[in-house]
Protein backbone atom coordinates (compact mmCIF):
# COMPACT_ATOMS: atom_id res chain seq x y z
CA UNK A 1 0.00 0.00 0.00
CA UNK A 2 1.76 3.08 -1.13
CA UNK A 3 -0.60 6.02 -1.00
CA UNK A 4 -3.21 5.83 1.68
CA UNK A 5 -5.96 8.31 2.42
CA UNK A 6 -7.68 7.75 5.72
CA UNK A 7 -10.92 9.60 6.40
CA UNK A 8 -9.59 12.78 4.81
CA UNK A 9 -11.65 15.93 5.21
CA UNK A 10 -11.09 19.43 3.94
CA UNK A 11 -13.31 22.16 5.34
CA UNK A 12 -13.27 25.71 4.02
CA UNK A 13 -14.65 28.59 6.01
CA UNK A 14 -17.08 30.58 3.90
CA UNK A 15 -19.43 33.48 4.43
CA UNK A 16 -18.78 37.07 5.38
CA UNK A 17 -16.91 36.33 8.61
CA UNK A 18 -15.99 32.73 7.93
CA UNK A 19 -19.00 31.69 9.96
CA UNK A 20 -20.08 28.87 7.73
CA UNK A 21 -18.13 25.76 6.97
CA UNK A 22 -18.07 24.06 3.60
CA UNK A 23 -16.69 20.56 3.34
CA UNK A 24 -15.02 20.25 -0.06
CA UNK A 25 -13.80 16.77 0.84
CA UNK A 26 -15.66 14.77 3.43
CA UNK A 27 -14.30 11.57 4.94
CA UNK A 28 -12.55 10.13 1.90
CA UNK A 29 -10.53 6.93 2.26
CA UNK A 30 -8.85 4.98 -0.50
CA UNK A 31 -5.41 3.79 -1.48
CA UNK A 32 -3.13 3.46 -4.47
CA UNK A 33 -0.73 0.55 -4.72
CA UNK A 34 2.59 0.30 -6.44
CA UNK A 35 2.34 -0.14 -10.19
CA UNK A 36 -1.31 0.71 -10.18
CA UNK A 37 -3.33 3.45 -11.82
CA UNK A 38 -6.34 4.56 -9.83
CA UNK A 39 -8.70 6.98 -11.47
CA UNK A 40 -10.56 9.47 -9.38
CA UNK A 41 -13.72 10.46 -11.19
CA UNK A 42 -16.17 13.17 -10.38
CA UNK A 43 -17.87 16.24 -11.70
CA UNK A 44 -16.55 19.80 -11.27
CA UNK A 45 -16.58 20.76 -7.63
CA UNK A 46 -16.65 17.17 -6.40
CA UNK A 47 -13.36 17.73 -4.55
CA UNK A 48 -11.14 15.60 -6.78
CA UNK A 49 -8.59 18.33 -7.44
CA UNK A 50 -8.59 19.27 -3.77
CA UNK A 51 -7.66 15.68 -2.97
CA UNK A 52 -4.83 15.87 -5.51
CA UNK A 53 -3.54 19.09 -4.00
CA UNK A 54 -3.73 17.68 -0.49
CA UNK A 55 -1.67 14.66 -1.53
CA UNK A 56 0.89 17.08 -2.99
CA UNK A 57 0.92 19.14 0.19
CA UNK A 58 -0.30 22.25 -1.63
CA UNK A 59 -3.50 22.39 0.44
CA UNK A 60 -3.67 21.62 4.13
CA UNK A 61 -5.70 18.69 5.43
CA UNK A 62 -8.42 19.60 7.93
CA UNK A 63 -8.78 16.14 9.49
CA UNK A 64 -7.73 12.62 8.61
CA UNK A 65 -4.40 11.52 7.25
CA UNK A 66 -2.65 10.99 3.96
CA UNK A 67 0.47 8.85 3.96
CA UNK A 68 2.88 7.70 1.30
CA UNK A 69 4.68 4.52 2.33
CA UNK A 70 3.60 5.29 5.86
CA UNK A 71 5.06 8.81 5.82
CA UNK A 72 2.55 11.61 6.24
CA UNK A 73 2.33 14.32 3.59
CA UNK A 74 4.82 17.06 4.18
CA UNK A 75 5.38 20.05 1.91
CA UNK A 76 9.11 19.44 1.99
CA UNK A 77 11.87 18.83 -0.47
CA UNK A 78 12.41 15.18 0.47
CA UNK A 79 8.73 14.37 0.09
CA UNK A 80 8.68 15.78 -3.44
CA UNK A 81 11.61 13.60 -4.39
CA UNK A 82 9.15 10.70 -4.42
CA UNK A 83 5.77 12.33 -4.98
CA UNK A 84 5.15 14.58 -7.95
CA UNK A 85 2.23 16.09 -9.74
CA UNK A 86 1.25 17.18 -13.23
CA UNK A 87 -1.54 19.70 -13.54
CA UNK A 88 -4.41 20.38 -15.86
CA UNK A 89 -3.29 23.53 -17.63
CA UNK A 90 0.18 23.14 -19.15
CA UNK A 91 0.25 26.81 -20.19
CA UNK A 92 -0.05 27.99 -16.61
CA UNK A 93 2.62 25.58 -15.31
CA UNK A 94 5.47 27.48 -16.92
CA UNK A 95 6.73 30.83 -15.78
CA UNK A 96 6.14 32.81 -18.98
CA UNK A 97 9.27 34.96 -18.63
CA UNK A 98 11.63 31.98 -18.62
CA UNK A 99 12.37 29.24 -21.10
CA UNK A 100 10.36 26.07 -20.71
CA UNK A 101 13.36 23.84 -19.88
CA UNK A 102 13.92 25.87 -16.72
CA UNK A 103 11.62 23.36 -14.99
CA UNK A 104 14.41 20.79 -15.43
CA UNK A 105 17.02 23.20 -14.18
CA UNK A 106 15.03 23.72 -10.99
CA UNK A 107 15.00 19.98 -10.36
CA UNK A 108 18.77 19.86 -10.81
CA UNK A 109 19.36 22.85 -8.52
CA UNK A 110 17.21 21.38 -5.76
CA UNK A 111 17.93 17.68 -5.98
CA UNK A 112 21.02 17.01 -8.05
CA UNK A 113 23.46 19.87 -7.45
CA UNK A 114 26.35 17.38 -7.58
CA UNK A 115 25.61 16.19 -11.11
CA UNK A 116 27.79 17.84 -13.74
CA UNK A 117 26.17 20.08 -16.33
CA UNK A 118 26.99 17.81 -19.27
CA UNK A 119 25.72 14.70 -17.51
CA UNK A 120 22.53 16.48 -16.52
CA UNK A 121 21.95 17.70 -20.08
CA UNK A 122 22.30 14.12 -21.23
CA UNK A 123 19.80 12.93 -18.63
CA UNK A 124 17.35 15.63 -19.67
CA UNK A 125 17.71 14.73 -23.32
CA UNK A 126 17.13 11.05 -22.75
CA UNK A 127 14.15 11.70 -20.47
CA UNK A 128 12.67 14.06 -23.01
CA UNK A 129 13.08 11.30 -25.58
CA UNK A 130 11.37 8.91 -23.18
CA UNK A 131 8.25 11.04 -23.34
CA UNK A 132 8.53 10.88 -27.14
CA UNK A 133 9.62 14.41 -27.74
CA UNK A 134 12.50 15.55 -29.88
CA UNK A 135 14.94 17.34 -27.54
CA UNK A 136 16.13 19.63 -30.32
CA UNK A 137 12.61 20.83 -30.94
CA UNK A 138 11.55 21.54 -27.39
CA UNK A 139 14.64 22.52 -25.40
CA UNK A 140 15.70 26.15 -25.35
CA UNK A 141 12.22 27.40 -26.30
CA UNK A 142 9.83 29.69 -24.47
CA UNK A 143 6.53 28.22 -23.25
CA UNK A 144 4.49 30.24 -25.74
CA UNK A 145 6.51 28.69 -28.57
CA UNK A 146 5.47 25.14 -27.65
CA UNK A 147 2.15 23.36 -27.95
CA UNK A 148 0.04 22.20 -25.02
CA UNK A 149 0.89 18.56 -25.69
CA UNK A 150 4.62 19.26 -25.76
CA UNK A 151 4.42 21.29 -22.56
CA UNK A 152 2.42 18.60 -20.82
CA UNK A 153 4.88 15.89 -21.81
CA UNK A 154 7.79 18.05 -20.66
CA UNK A 155 6.11 18.22 -17.27
CA UNK A 156 5.86 14.45 -17.14
CA UNK A 157 9.55 14.28 -18.11
CA UNK A 158 10.28 16.70 -15.29
CA UNK A 159 8.62 14.35 -12.79
CA UNK A 160 10.53 11.39 -14.24
CA UNK A 161 13.88 13.06 -13.60
CA UNK A 162 13.20 12.48 -9.94
CA UNK A 163 13.07 9.11 -8.27
CA UNK A 164 9.28 9.19 -8.02
CA UNK A 165 7.01 6.56 -6.59
CA UNK A 166 3.71 8.34 -6.98
CA UNK A 167 2.44 10.68 -9.66
CA UNK A 168 -0.71 12.73 -9.17
CA UNK A 169 -2.03 13.46 -12.64
CA UNK A 170 -4.72 16.10 -12.24
CA UNK A 171 -6.83 16.26 -15.41
CA UNK A 172 -3.66 16.17 -17.43
CA UNK A 173 -5.40 15.34 -20.69
CA UNK A 174 -8.35 17.71 -20.58
CA UNK A 175 -6.52 20.48 -22.43
CA UNK A 176 -5.10 18.19 -25.10
CA UNK A 177 -6.48 17.16 -28.46
CA UNK A 178 -7.64 13.59 -29.00
CA UNK A 179 -4.48 12.12 -30.56
CA UNK A 180 -2.07 13.77 -28.13
CA UNK A 181 -4.31 12.59 -25.35
CA UNK A 182 -3.78 8.96 -26.29
CA UNK A 183 -0.01 9.53 -26.41
CA UNK A 184 -0.03 10.94 -22.90
CA UNK A 185 -2.21 8.08 -21.66
CA UNK A 186 0.16 5.54 -23.18
CA UNK A 187 2.92 7.31 -21.34
CA UNK A 188 1.06 6.89 -18.07
CA UNK A 189 0.58 3.22 -18.87
CA UNK A 190 4.37 2.94 -19.26
CA UNK A 191 4.89 4.56 -15.88
CA UNK A 192 2.67 1.92 -14.42
CA UNK A 193 4.88 -0.75 -15.98
CA UNK A 194 7.84 0.86 -14.23
CA UNK A 195 6.13 0.30 -10.90
CA UNK A 196 4.91 3.79 -10.24
CA UNK A 197 1.61 4.47 -8.59
CA UNK A 198 -0.52 6.93 -10.51
CA UNK A 199 -3.56 8.77 -9.23
CA UNK A 200 -5.38 9.82 -12.35
CA UNK A 201 -7.84 12.57 -11.54
CA UNK A 202 -10.37 13.09 -14.31
CA UNK A 203 -13.92 13.91 -15.23
CA UNK A 204 -13.64 11.90 -18.41
CA UNK A 205 -15.00 8.42 -17.84
CA UNK A 206 -13.89 6.86 -21.08
CA UNK A 207 -10.25 7.80 -20.41
CA UNK A 208 -10.40 6.55 -16.86
CA UNK A 209 -11.71 3.29 -18.19
CA UNK A 210 -8.84 3.01 -20.67
CA UNK A 211 -6.13 3.21 -18.08
CA UNK A 212 -7.09 2.46 -14.53
CA UNK A 213 -7.20 -0.79 -12.59
CA UNK A 214 -9.42 0.73 -10.01
CA UNK A 215 -11.86 3.61 -10.04
CA UNK A 216 -13.05 5.87 -7.28
CA UNK A 217 -16.23 7.86 -7.99
CA UNK A 218 -16.50 11.05 -6.03
CA UNK A 219 -19.57 13.20 -5.51
CA UNK A 220 -19.85 16.34 -3.36
CA UNK A 221 -16.64 15.43 -1.58
CA UNK A 222 -17.57 11.87 -0.65
CA UNK A 223 -16.85 8.55 -2.29
CA UNK A 224 -20.04 7.03 -3.67
CA UNK A 225 -18.55 3.99 -5.30
CA UNK A 226 -15.18 2.41 -5.78
CA UNK A 227 -13.66 -0.81 -6.91
CA UNK A 228 -12.11 -2.53 -9.89
CA UNK A 229 -12.74 -0.46 -12.98
CA UNK A 230 -14.54 -3.25 -14.80
CA UNK A 231 -16.84 -3.78 -11.83
CA UNK A 232 -17.62 -0.10 -11.36
CA UNK A 233 -18.15 0.46 -15.06
CA UNK A 234 -19.68 -2.90 -15.89
CA UNK A 235 -21.94 -3.21 -12.92
CA UNK A 236 -22.50 0.25 -11.47
CA UNK A 237 -24.38 0.10 -8.20
CA UNK A 238 -24.83 3.67 -7.12
CA UNK A 239 -27.37 5.76 -9.03
CA UNK A 240 -24.85 8.56 -9.42
CA UNK A 241 -22.36 6.25 -11.12
CA UNK A 242 -25.09 5.05 -13.42
CA UNK A 243 -26.01 8.60 -14.22
CA UNK A 244 -22.39 9.39 -15.02
CA UNK A 245 -22.06 6.37 -17.28
CA UNK A 246 -25.30 7.18 -19.05
CA UNK A 247 -23.91 10.62 -19.85
CA UNK A 248 -21.00 9.25 -21.89
CA UNK A 249 -21.77 9.90 -25.56
CA UNK A 250 -21.82 6.84 -27.81
CA UNK A 251 -21.55 6.50 -31.51
CA UNK A 252 -24.69 5.37 -33.34
CA UNK A 253 -26.75 5.39 -30.21
CA UNK A 254 -29.44 7.84 -29.21
CA UNK A 255 -28.65 9.99 -26.22
CA UNK A 256 -29.88 8.20 -23.17
CA UNK A 257 -31.67 9.94 -20.41
CA UNK A 258 -28.89 11.31 -18.27
CA UNK A 259 -31.10 11.32 -15.19
CA UNK A 260 -30.92 8.25 -12.99
CA UNK A 261 -33.95 6.03 -13.24
CA UNK A 262 -34.91 7.23 -9.82
CA UNK A 263 -34.21 4.15 -7.79
CA UNK A 264 -30.90 2.34 -7.56
CA UNK A 265 -30.86 -1.36 -7.81
CA UNK A 266 -30.90 -1.44 -4.04
CA UNK A 267 -32.14 1.82 -2.84
CA UNK A 268 -33.78 5.16 -3.61
CA UNK A 269 -31.75 7.70 -5.54
CA UNK A 270 -29.44 10.05 -3.74
CA UNK A 271 -28.71 7.75 -0.89
CA UNK A 272 -25.36 8.08 0.71
CA UNK A 273 -23.72 6.78 3.81
CA UNK A 274 -20.80 4.69 4.90
CA UNK A 275 -19.24 2.59 2.17
CA UNK A 276 -20.43 -0.96 2.12
CA UNK A 277 -18.80 -3.85 0.38
CA UNK A 278 -21.25 -5.08 -2.21
CA UNK A 279 -18.90 -7.76 -3.43
CA UNK A 280 -15.19 -8.40 -2.96
CA UNK A 281 -13.35 -5.17 -3.68
CA UNK A 282 -16.43 -3.30 -4.85
CA UNK A 283 -17.67 -0.65 -2.43
CA UNK A 284 -20.74 1.48 -2.67
CA UNK A 285 -22.21 4.17 -0.48
CA UNK A 286 -25.68 2.89 0.27
CA UNK A 287 -27.06 2.75 3.75
CA UNK A 288 -29.58 0.07 3.02
CA UNK A 289 -27.52 -2.13 0.79
CA UNK A 290 -27.85 -5.07 3.09
CA UNK A 291 -31.66 -4.88 3.10
CA UNK A 292 -31.99 -4.89 -0.63
CA UNK A 293 -32.39 -8.04 -2.67
CA UNK A 294 -29.67 -8.60 -5.23
Amino acid at each position, binding site marked *: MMLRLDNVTKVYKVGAFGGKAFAAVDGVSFDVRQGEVVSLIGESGSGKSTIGRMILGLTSITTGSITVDGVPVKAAKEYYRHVQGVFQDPFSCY*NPVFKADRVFRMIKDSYYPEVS*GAEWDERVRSTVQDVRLNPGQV*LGKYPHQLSGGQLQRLLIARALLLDIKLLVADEITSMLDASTRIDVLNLLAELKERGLGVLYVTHDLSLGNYLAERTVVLRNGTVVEMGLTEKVFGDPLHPYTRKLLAAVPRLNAPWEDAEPTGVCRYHAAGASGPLLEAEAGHFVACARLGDCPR
Partner: protein
Amino acid sequence: MTAIQETPAKDAGAGVRREALYFALRNGKLLAGFGVVAVLFLLGFAGPLVLEAADPNAYGSQPMAPPSGEHWFGTTTFGQDVFAQFVHGLRTTFVVGALGGGIAAVIAMAVGFTAGYRGGLVDEILNMVTNIVLVIPTLAVLLIINAYLGVRSVPAQALFIGLTSWPWAARAIRAQTFSLRTRDFVALARLSGSSTRKIILREIAPNMSSYLFMMFILLFGGSILIASSLDFIGLGPTEGVSLGLMLQNANQWSAMQLGLWWWFLPPGAGITAVVGALYVANVGLDEVFNPKLRET
Protein backbone atom coordinates in the same frame (compact mmCIF):
# COMPACT_ATOMS: atom_id res chain seq x y z
CA MET B 1 13.59 20.02 -39.93
CA THR B 2 16.56 17.86 -39.06
CA ALA B 3 18.84 20.86 -39.31
CA ILE B 4 17.34 22.66 -36.34
CA GLN B 5 17.01 19.65 -34.12
CA GLU B 6 20.44 19.43 -32.62
CA THR B 7 20.62 22.71 -30.73
CA PRO B 8 22.37 21.93 -27.44
CA ALA B 9 20.61 22.92 -24.25
CA LYS B 10 22.47 25.88 -22.83
CA ASP B 11 23.18 26.80 -19.26
CA ALA B 12 19.78 28.22 -18.35
CA GLY B 13 20.65 30.93 -15.82
CA ALA B 14 23.50 32.48 -17.76
CA GLY B 15 21.48 32.15 -20.95
CA VAL B 16 18.64 34.27 -19.60
CA ARG B 17 21.06 36.99 -18.55
CA ARG B 18 22.95 36.96 -21.83
CA GLU B 19 19.72 37.08 -23.74
CA ALA B 20 18.35 39.99 -21.68
CA LEU B 21 21.57 41.88 -22.35
CA TYR B 22 21.30 41.08 -26.05
CA PHE B 23 17.82 42.56 -26.29
CA ALA B 24 18.67 45.45 -23.95
CA LEU B 25 21.49 46.62 -26.21
CA ARG B 26 19.14 46.62 -29.18
CA ASN B 27 16.29 48.49 -27.56
CA GLY B 28 16.17 52.14 -28.60
CA LYS B 29 13.79 53.27 -25.88
CA LEU B 30 15.87 51.71 -23.16
CA LEU B 31 19.12 53.14 -24.47
CA ALA B 32 17.65 56.62 -25.04
CA GLY B 33 16.01 56.72 -21.61
CA PHE B 34 19.03 55.45 -19.72
CA GLY B 35 21.26 57.67 -21.87
CA VAL B 36 19.50 60.84 -20.74
CA VAL B 37 19.49 59.72 -17.12
CA ALA B 38 23.17 58.77 -17.31
CA VAL B 39 24.14 62.16 -18.75
CA LEU B 40 22.25 64.04 -16.05
CA PHE B 41 23.61 61.69 -13.41
CA LEU B 42 27.18 62.27 -14.53
CA LEU B 43 26.54 65.99 -14.68
CA GLY B 44 25.20 65.96 -11.12
CA PHE B 45 28.00 63.84 -9.68
CA ALA B 46 31.05 64.88 -11.67
CA GLY B 47 29.99 68.48 -12.34
CA PRO B 48 30.44 69.87 -8.83
CA LEU B 49 33.94 68.40 -8.70
CA VAL B 50 34.96 70.02 -11.96
CA LEU B 51 33.38 73.43 -11.45
CA GLU B 52 35.65 76.12 -10.07
CA ALA B 53 33.04 77.81 -7.89
CA ALA B 54 33.01 75.88 -4.63
CA ASP B 55 29.78 77.49 -3.40
CA PRO B 56 26.95 77.57 -5.93
CA ASN B 57 25.16 80.13 -3.79
CA ALA B 58 28.07 82.62 -3.79
CA TYR B 59 27.03 86.05 -4.98
CA GLY B 60 28.63 87.21 -8.23
CA SER B 61 29.38 90.51 -9.83
CA GLN B 62 27.05 90.14 -12.83
CA PRO B 63 23.42 89.93 -11.66
CA MET B 64 20.62 88.95 -14.03
CA ALA B 65 23.00 88.12 -16.88
CA PRO B 66 21.53 85.99 -19.70
CA PRO B 67 23.29 82.77 -20.75
CA SER B 68 26.76 83.43 -22.12
CA GLY B 69 30.13 81.76 -22.50
CA GLU B 70 31.06 82.83 -19.01
CA HIS B 71 27.77 81.82 -17.35
CA TRP B 72 26.31 79.00 -19.41
CA PHE B 73 22.85 79.23 -17.85
CA GLY B 74 23.07 82.92 -16.96
CA THR B 75 22.95 84.35 -13.43
CA THR B 76 20.31 85.11 -10.82
CA THR B 77 19.27 88.44 -9.34
CA PHE B 78 22.21 88.07 -6.99
CA GLY B 79 24.70 87.15 -9.64
CA GLN B 80 24.77 83.46 -8.65
CA ASP B 81 25.72 81.13 -11.49
CA VAL B 82 22.60 79.16 -12.51
CA PHE B 83 24.62 76.36 -14.10
CA ALA B 84 26.55 75.78 -10.88
CA GLN B 85 23.28 75.72 -8.97
CA PHE B 86 21.73 73.38 -11.54
CA VAL B 87 24.60 70.91 -11.30
CA HIS B 88 24.57 70.92 -7.51
CA GLY B 89 20.79 70.76 -7.54
CA LEU B 90 20.83 67.69 -9.78
CA ARG B 91 23.05 65.91 -7.30
CA THR B 92 20.64 66.64 -4.45
CA THR B 93 17.72 65.60 -6.62
CA PHE B 94 19.30 62.24 -7.47
CA VAL B 95 20.13 61.62 -3.83
CA VAL B 96 16.58 62.42 -2.69
CA GLY B 97 15.04 60.40 -5.52
CA ALA B 98 17.23 57.33 -5.08
CA LEU B 99 17.11 57.35 -1.29
CA GLY B 100 13.43 58.26 -0.89
CA GLY B 101 12.30 56.07 -3.79
CA GLY B 102 14.60 53.26 -2.67
CA ILE B 103 13.35 53.23 0.91
CA ALA B 104 9.73 53.35 -0.26
CA ALA B 105 10.32 50.58 -2.82
CA VAL B 106 11.95 48.28 -0.26
CA ILE B 107 9.11 48.76 2.22
CA ALA B 108 6.50 48.37 -0.51
CA MET B 109 8.02 45.13 -1.78
CA ALA B 110 8.48 43.65 1.67
CA VAL B 111 4.90 44.45 2.67
CA GLY B 112 3.32 43.72 -0.71
CA PHE B 113 4.99 40.36 -1.34
CA THR B 114 4.49 39.14 2.22
CA ALA B 115 0.83 40.17 2.38
CA GLY B 116 0.06 38.87 -1.09
CA TYR B 117 1.83 35.54 -0.76
CA ARG B 118 0.96 34.68 2.83
CA GLY B 119 -2.63 35.90 2.81
CA GLY B 120 -4.85 35.30 5.83
CA LEU B 121 -4.16 37.08 9.08
CA VAL B 122 -0.73 38.36 7.99
CA ASP B 123 -2.41 39.97 5.01
CA GLU B 124 -5.16 41.49 7.17
CA ILE B 125 -2.64 43.11 9.52
CA LEU B 126 -0.28 44.37 6.82
CA ASN B 127 -3.21 45.64 4.81
CA MET B 128 -4.50 47.54 7.82
CA VAL B 129 -1.11 49.19 8.35
CA THR B 130 -0.92 50.03 4.64
CA ASN B 131 -4.36 51.60 4.65
CA ILE B 132 -3.59 53.64 7.75
CA VAL B 133 -0.41 55.05 6.21
CA LEU B 134 -2.30 55.57 2.96
CA VAL B 135 -4.93 57.83 4.51
CA ILE B 136 -2.42 59.91 6.48
CA PRO B 137 -2.24 63.29 4.74
CA THR B 138 1.39 62.90 3.80
CA LEU B 139 2.22 66.45 2.90
CA ALA B 140 0.71 67.80 6.12
CA VAL B 141 2.69 65.30 8.19
CA LEU B 142 5.88 66.11 6.29
CA LEU B 143 5.21 69.79 6.94
CA ILE B 144 4.71 69.21 10.64
CA ILE B 145 7.72 66.93 10.97
CA ASN B 146 9.94 69.28 9.03
CA ALA B 147 8.70 72.36 10.86
CA TYR B 148 8.54 70.82 14.32
CA LEU B 149 11.65 68.71 14.36
CA GLY B 150 13.52 71.17 12.24
CA VAL B 151 15.25 68.35 10.44
CA ARG B 152 16.72 70.02 7.43
CA SER B 153 19.24 67.62 5.90
CA VAL B 154 18.77 65.94 2.53
CA PRO B 155 18.96 62.33 3.86
CA ALA B 156 16.41 63.11 6.57
CA GLN B 157 14.08 64.59 4.00
CA ALA B 158 14.52 61.51 1.82
CA LEU B 159 13.84 59.25 4.79
CA PHE B 160 10.58 61.00 5.62
CA ILE B 161 9.47 60.87 2.02
CA GLY B 162 10.39 57.18 1.78
CA LEU B 163 8.52 56.28 4.95
CA THR B 164 5.30 57.88 3.79
CA SER B 165 5.11 57.21 0.05
CA TRP B 166 5.11 53.38 -0.09
CA PRO B 167 1.46 52.38 0.55
CA TRP B 168 0.05 52.58 -2.99
CA ALA B 169 2.98 50.58 -4.30
CA ALA B 170 2.56 47.96 -1.56
CA ARG B 171 -1.11 47.59 -2.47
CA ALA B 172 -0.30 47.21 -6.13
CA ILE B 173 2.37 44.56 -5.47
CA ARG B 174 0.04 42.73 -3.10
CA ALA B 175 -2.69 42.60 -5.73
CA GLN B 176 -0.28 41.32 -8.40
CA THR B 177 1.18 38.74 -6.02
CA PHE B 178 -2.31 37.55 -5.17
CA SER B 179 -3.05 36.75 -8.77
CA LEU B 180 0.37 35.23 -9.50
CA ARG B 181 0.61 32.96 -6.47
CA THR B 182 -2.38 30.87 -7.56
CA ARG B 183 -0.75 30.10 -10.89
CA ASP B 184 0.36 26.53 -11.40
CA PHE B 185 4.00 27.45 -11.92
CA VAL B 186 4.14 28.55 -8.29
CA ALA B 187 2.77 25.16 -7.23
CA LEU B 188 5.30 23.50 -9.53
CA ALA B 189 8.16 25.50 -7.99
CA ARG B 190 7.01 24.27 -4.60
CA LEU B 191 7.03 20.71 -5.96
CA SER B 192 10.59 21.41 -7.12
CA GLY B 193 11.62 22.02 -3.53
CA SER B 194 11.77 25.83 -3.68
CA SER B 195 11.40 27.79 -0.45
CA THR B 196 8.86 30.59 -0.08
CA ARG B 197 11.59 33.22 -0.34
CA LYS B 198 12.90 31.63 -3.50
CA ILE B 199 9.42 31.41 -5.00
CA ILE B 200 8.81 35.11 -4.38
CA LEU B 201 12.21 36.16 -5.69
CA ARG B 202 12.58 33.76 -8.61
CA GLU B 203 9.02 33.05 -9.73
CA ILE B 204 6.75 35.92 -8.77
CA ALA B 205 9.07 38.92 -8.86
CA PRO B 206 10.48 38.23 -12.37
CA ASN B 207 6.92 38.20 -13.69
CA MET B 208 6.48 41.74 -12.53
CA SER B 209 10.05 42.96 -12.95
CA SER B 210 9.12 45.74 -15.33
CA TYR B 211 6.22 46.58 -13.06
CA LEU B 212 8.56 46.75 -10.06
CA PHE B 213 10.97 48.91 -11.99
CA MET B 214 8.16 51.20 -13.04
CA MET B 215 7.08 51.39 -9.42
CA PHE B 216 10.61 52.43 -8.45
CA ILE B 217 10.63 55.05 -11.18
CA LEU B 218 7.29 56.41 -10.00
CA LEU B 219 8.50 56.47 -6.40
CA PHE B 220 11.78 58.02 -7.54
CA GLY B 221 9.96 60.70 -9.51
CA GLY B 222 7.42 61.14 -6.72
CA SER B 223 10.19 61.65 -4.15
CA ILE B 224 11.79 64.29 -6.36
CA LEU B 225 8.47 66.05 -6.79
CA ILE B 226 7.60 65.92 -3.08
CA ALA B 227 11.09 67.15 -2.19
CA SER B 228 10.77 69.91 -4.75
CA SER B 229 7.40 70.95 -3.32
CA LEU B 230 8.82 70.94 0.19
CA ASP B 231 11.78 72.98 -1.00
CA PHE B 232 9.44 75.23 -2.92
CA ILE B 233 7.39 76.10 0.15
CA GLY B 234 10.54 76.67 2.14
CA LEU B 235 10.69 73.46 4.18
CA GLY B 236 13.61 71.87 2.42
CA PRO B 237 17.21 71.66 3.52
CA THR B 238 18.41 75.09 4.57
CA GLU B 239 21.88 74.58 3.26
CA GLY B 240 22.97 73.72 -0.22
CA VAL B 241 20.83 73.83 -3.29
CA SER B 242 18.25 71.66 -5.02
CA LEU B 243 16.20 71.97 -8.16
CA GLY B 244 13.13 72.67 -6.02
CA LEU B 245 14.95 75.38 -4.08
CA MET B 246 16.01 76.98 -7.36
CA LEU B 247 12.37 77.05 -8.46
CA GLN B 248 11.41 78.52 -5.11
CA ASN B 249 14.01 81.26 -5.35
CA ALA B 250 13.10 82.01 -8.94
CA ASN B 251 9.47 82.35 -7.90
CA GLN B 252 10.29 84.38 -4.80
CA TRP B 253 12.38 86.87 -6.73
CA SER B 254 9.88 87.19 -9.57
CA ALA B 255 12.08 85.64 -12.24
CA MET B 256 9.02 85.11 -14.43
CA GLN B 257 7.96 88.74 -14.30
CA LEU B 258 11.51 89.98 -14.82
CA GLY B 259 11.94 87.73 -17.84
CA LEU B 260 14.77 85.72 -16.26
CA TRP B 261 13.67 82.50 -18.01
CA TRP B 262 17.12 80.95 -17.59
CA TRP B 263 16.59 80.88 -13.84
CA PHE B 264 13.52 78.63 -13.66
CA LEU B 265 13.70 76.75 -16.96
CA PRO B 266 16.78 74.56 -16.23
CA PRO B 267 15.54 73.19 -12.87
CA GLY B 268 12.04 72.56 -14.30
CA ALA B 269 13.47 70.89 -17.38
CA GLY B 270 15.91 68.90 -15.23
CA ILE B 271 13.14 67.40 -13.09
CA THR B 272 11.02 66.64 -16.18
CA ALA B 273 13.96 65.10 -18.05
CA VAL B 274 14.96 62.73 -15.24
CA VAL B 275 11.43 61.47 -14.60
CA GLY B 276 10.46 61.39 -18.28
CA ALA B 277 13.60 59.53 -19.37
CA LEU B 278 13.03 56.93 -16.65
CA TYR B 279 9.51 56.33 -17.99
CA VAL B 280 10.78 55.80 -21.51
CA ALA B 281 13.47 53.44 -20.21
CA ASN B 282 10.77 51.47 -18.41
CA VAL B 283 8.79 50.90 -21.59
CA GLY B 284 11.99 49.55 -23.13
CA LEU B 285 12.70 47.34 -20.13
CA ASP B 286 9.25 45.82 -20.41
CA GLU B 287 10.11 44.69 -23.92
CA VAL B 288 13.43 43.27 -22.77
CA PHE B 289 12.01 41.23 -19.90
CA ASN B 290 8.82 40.07 -21.52
CA PRO B 291 9.66 37.69 -24.38
CA LYS B 292 6.16 38.06 -25.81
CA LEU B 293 6.62 41.79 -26.42
CA ARG B 294 9.82 41.36 -28.39
CA GLU B 295 9.52 42.18 -32.02
CA THR B 296 11.41 39.11 -33.23
